[in-house]
């Protein structure tokens, strides 16, 4: 505990003999100098720490961060644009391929049709030739038929006359047969 002399000293204005505060220590003017001095030292220290180290560092970090974020956003935008472009290109390639396939199938169809038409025409030609030939044969047969009939009738008439016991005169029979056949 304090001894007698300095209790009357500068501390004694604010502190009683038991070491307790007299009134409000805040209002003790003996301590103001100390408060003001150390406050100024403290403020200068904090100010120097902030301006020399802390604030440039924090603002640099914040600026760098916002730069990074905007860069990343721009990159994302770019990638999105690329994706859209790729999709367009894909769609275009798909449409091209579809058109190409259509073209190829059309060509094939046309070629097949041409071949088929040629074959049909050839077959028709053959059929026509064959039917003309047949017609000719039929016509020949048809043209030959009256002569054959007359000949058969002549032979039959000669045989009938012979069978009836007559004497078949070839000229008479021929004349009679010709007359009958013509008469028909």
């Amino acid at each position: 505990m304090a001894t007698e002399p300095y209790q009357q000293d500068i501390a004694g204005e604010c502190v009683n003999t038991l070491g307790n505060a007299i009134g409000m220590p805040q209002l003790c003017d003996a301590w103001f100098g100390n408060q003001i001095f150390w406050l100024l030292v403290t403020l200068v220290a904090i100010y120097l720490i902030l301006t020399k180290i802390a604030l440039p560092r924090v603002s640099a970090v914040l600026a760098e961060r916002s730069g990074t974020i905007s860069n990343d956003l721009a990159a994302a935008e770019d990638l999105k644009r690329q994706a859209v472009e790729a999709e367009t290109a894909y769609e275009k390639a798909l449409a091209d391929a579809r058109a190409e396939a259509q073209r190829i199938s059309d060509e094939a169809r046309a070629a097949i049709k041409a071949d088929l038409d040629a074959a049909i025409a050839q077959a028709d030609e053959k059929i026509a030739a064959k039917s003309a030939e047949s017609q000719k044969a039929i016509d020949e047969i048809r043209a030959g038929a009256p002569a054959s009939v007359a000949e058969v009738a002549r032979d039959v008439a000669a045989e009938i006359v012979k069978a009836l016991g007559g004497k078949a005169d070839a000229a008479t029979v021929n004349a009679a047969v010709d007359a009958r056949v013509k008469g028909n």
Partner: protein
Amino acid sequence: MAEPSAEGGLSFHPMDQFMIKPLFGEYGDPVSWYTVTNLTLWMGLAVVCVAGLFVFATRGRAIIPDRGQSVAELAYGFVYKMVEDVTGKDAVKYFPYIFTLFLFILFANFLALIPSSFSPTSHIGVTAVLAFAVFFAVTILGFVKNGASFLGLFWVTSAPLAIRPVLAVIELISYFVRPVSHSIRLAGNLTAGHAVLKVFAGFAQVAAISPFAILGVAAIYGLEVLVGFIQAYVFTILTCVYLKDALHPNH
């Protein structure tokens, strides 16, 4: 502290916590302006905390901040935005000064909540220096930036001419009361809160009411945490408002 006195009753000394004592040497040694005292210690700890938060915690300079760096950036952004919003974009160059005030008051207030610590901001001698520094800086800045038109702050042109002189007197008085209210608000809040804490703690010595006293201490402590932040915020935002008056006196 409260201790049973020789008469057998309780004697409270809630104000003893505010006494300034030399850190080294005998108790009761004279305290001159350069003496290293408990006030020096706790202000120094505030400086250490500022350095810890803004130098040590931000040493990574990480794009994705860790917790400490986040807190530092949050504090920076909080005060920076306050200066920008309240005072204007042209006041951003005064941000380091305002941030210094804010951080000093904030850490002094919070460190004062450590039991048996000392609260520098409860001293009117400390807060008055802060407030008058703001007052003089703002007044001088106002005249330097605006010249005589700074006096337009007191001549309210939006009011009718007849009552302008009356308003001028009121404005003038309120202007000069600013540093007083500015400093007493902070010191008074801190002093009252810490004194009440001590009174409740003193009552805790009486067995019958000690549970209530301890609950009271806990409740007041929570309140004081809020007060510690809010007073730092209020001091800072008022500084911004005063600075705005100096930079743009014609509203």
